[in-house]
């Protein structure tokens, strides 16, 4: 069973995402800021993180950097950023840091689900080859 963590401070958006993702057959976890998300990543090892950027406490860039730098065994978890920040600077920052993808709001759910399926396919092939986890 694939577990997907949804990190989003806007309750309405997070609820819609969770509804869509869980209806597609995934287990979901929810966090409304980077700090909560970090605890869940460390405690529950989700397979994929769908992550907002503009959030109080700890933003998406900071969360991703924290996982990359201080949690080596979790650094392979794919991050799909889903944000209302559509400027190039933020996109470049996230992709350079190693994000799996960068989607802007409003997002087409078909596109989001395709990205998630793509990550799942890669995870499964990695697992078959014994490369991750």
């Amino acid at each position: 069973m694939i577990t997907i963590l949804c990190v989003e401070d806007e309750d309405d958006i997070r609820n819609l995402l969770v509804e869509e993702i869980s209806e597609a057959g995934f287990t979901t976890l929810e966090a409304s800021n980077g700090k909560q998300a970090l605890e869940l990543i460390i405690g529950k090892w989700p397979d994929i993180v769908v992550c907002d950027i503009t959030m109080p406490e700890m933003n998406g860039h900071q969360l991703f950097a924290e996982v990359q730098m201080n949690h080596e065994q979790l650094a392979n978890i794919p991050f799909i950023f889903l944000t209302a920040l559509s400027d190039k600077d933020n996109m470049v920052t996230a992709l350079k840091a190693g994000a799996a993808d960068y989607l802007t709001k409003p997002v087409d759910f078909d596109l989001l689900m395709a990205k998630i399926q793509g990550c799942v396919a890669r995870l499964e092939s990695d697992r078959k080859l014994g490369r991750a986890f």
Partner: protein
Amino acid sequence: MSNVYEARENDSREDATGLLHATIDNFPGGICVLDNDLTMLVTNRKFYELLDLSEDMFPAGSNLEGVFRYNAHRGEYGPGDPEEKVRERLSHVRRFEEHRFDREVGTGLVIEMRSAPKPGGGSVLTYLDVTINRRAEQALLRHKETLEELVSLRTEEIERQAEELRRLLDQERHINELQRQFVTMTSHEFRTPLAIIDGAAQRLQRRRHAVTSEFVEEKAGLIRGAVSRMVDLMESFLSAGRIEHGNMTYEFRPCSLREVIERCVARQQSIAATHRFHLELNNLPPVVVADTVAMEQVFSNLISNAVKYAPVSPDIYITGYSDAGSACVTVADTGVGIDADDLPKMFQRYFRARSSTGIAGTGIGLNLVKQIVEAHKGNISLESRKARGSTFTVTLPITNPMLTAAECGEAKAG
């Protein structure tokens, strides 16, 4: 080394003396030849003229000491004991050394005085009128000083201008940066409710074969909430634009702040279910004279800010009271607070405090609030501590002094 044409054999001694006198008298400077006891052996007309002396008093053959004493007593050598001055001069001239100096004499002329040792003892003193040269030098010097002063003034002025330019450039850069952030955040602010609307619509489409009326109701509610959020956002932009161009109009009518605040709180409560609003509005005056729509903008901004900047501190306190003819409302949160050095800039347009990092916002809300409150002849103040929360206090006159005869109607804000 002087050149003298050898006198012919038949020239008489008188002729030679006459030639010498003619030469000396026609020399354009003063001449005084001294022997070693300072007797003036030879003097010329110019000598008496330049030093303003009478030839009768000091004819050739008299002693220079007499000239010194005469000059000392008439003040030529400046203040002080004249005999002392005479002694100084005598000891100086008796050295019979080569020297040169300038002196301004009593007549105002500047005389260059030279002394050269004479073969066989004594010396030859020459006097030249250098008044014009010295005056020209002094004028040049003064001119140079004036020029230098001018240059230094201009340099200072240019440096001041450069400093001013640097300051303006910094300011311009700062404004550009604020505007860049504003554009980014504005796009963010519109995309967020759009994402809710689009997400809810997509969910409705995906479930189209199995939707319940509750599901439709819930998604429609999300859409309507997001739409009203976008309308609020647009209203803020429009109001900010109107204020900036000086054509914001207010309808001053009796307005119940209590009702305004309760409406704003109800709207916020529906968006931020986890926050608790503690209202204490019983001591508010029943009505103030104000524009109700503008008041809704003021309090919806302050209340939504309180929620937004206190994401994990759910208690918001809103207290109203009367004070000296004014209605006062405080909106207090226990959220992220504001750094002390950001406080003075909080009401500047586009400014966002450092502690707002990670929290969406455009930086126009508080500026709009302040402008509206001031257009109502009220004021707004702010107390805040980083990580402790912020308290905004709005004070509004109960009867608006801008309105005299007509209690109701429109007033234009400048």
